[in-house]
């Protein structure tokens, strides 16, 4: 009997059933938004009067950085659910999110460097926001390595959850370092709810589509990855049962 609670989906069977139904739609919508948004941004936006055509890099850089930071926040929530309520699906979802977040961080760093070279005159600078983002990437690598290094799944989930709590400092700094420290080359938020926001709609509209696309892509890869982790866990359990029966 359904009680309508979110915790129902901590049950792997229910999660697999629901995610199996939702995944094709999320994946299709993600593909449409990513392809449509990037096509719009690359082919149909004008050059900026100061940045020239490098302004088109924003359609990759901002959505990738957004997902890289929010993926870590999602992993933090999932880790807390694991630590407090011991729901395996939460731990496996955090594990599945890490490679996606890591690749998004690489895209953010790479596109930032490629844009920074002609605009700032340097590929890299030890600016607080950039440095925090690089450390976040190293935390992603450490998180993935820790999951691989520990054989016992529960111990791995515990230790990676603690690592996730520590790394959250750098996820927050990646987003807000420009507010905490006034020095540094990286500008503040490209988009703001404050009146008098600086970006024209010619750029803002495709940027919103790309942000939605990257977020949906993250969700699709997260669902697919979590389903894989659940199946891998079941395989391990069956093999242990076989070995014990033999």
């Amino acid at each position, binding site marked *: 009997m359904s009680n309508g609670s979110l915790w129902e989906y901590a049950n792997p069977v229910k999660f697999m059933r629901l995610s199996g139904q939702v995944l094709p739609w999320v994946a299709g919508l993600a593909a449409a938004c990513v392809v449509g948004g*990037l096509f719009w941004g690359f082919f149909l936006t004008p*050059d900026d009067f100061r940045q*020239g055509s490098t302004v088109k890099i924003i359609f990759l850089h901002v959505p990738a950085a957004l997902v890289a930071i929010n993926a870590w926040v999602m992993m933090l929530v999932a880790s807390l659910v694991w630590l407090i309520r011991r729901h395996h699906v939460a731990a496996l979802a955090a594990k599945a999110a890490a490679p996606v977040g890591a690749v998004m961080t*690489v895209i953010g760093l790479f596109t930032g460097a*490629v844009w920074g*070279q002609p605009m700032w005159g340097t590929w890299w600078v030890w600016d607080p926001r950039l440095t925090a983002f690089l450390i976040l990437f190293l935390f992603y690598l450490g998180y993935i390595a820790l999951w691989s290094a520990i054989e016992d799944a529960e111990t791995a989930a515990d230790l990676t959850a603690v690592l996730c709590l520590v790394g959250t400092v750098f996820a927050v700094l990646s987003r807000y370092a420009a507010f905490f420290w006034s020095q540094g080359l990286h500008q503040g938020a490209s988009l703001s709810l404050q009146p008098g926001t600086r970006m024209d709609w010619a750029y803002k509209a495709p940027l919103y589509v790309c942000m939605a696309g990257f977020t949906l892509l993250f969700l699709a890869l997260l669902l697919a990855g979590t389903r894989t982790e659940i*199946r891998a866990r079941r395989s391990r359990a*069956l093999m242990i049962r076989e070995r014990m029966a033999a």
Partner: protein
Amino acid sequence: MPDLGAYTVEVSLAYLGSLGLLGGLTLWVWLRGRRVRADLDLIENRSERNRHG
């Protein structure tokens, strides 16, 4: 192809590199999912056979 002016190399590099990474990630998630699913099917069938002698 839009005219990218003086920044053709930078913008093309950013798009090609990022799309390559996104494509690679999607492919990796999909292929790993397929492999793990095939492994699980194999193990489940074997367990079922063993259970029924």
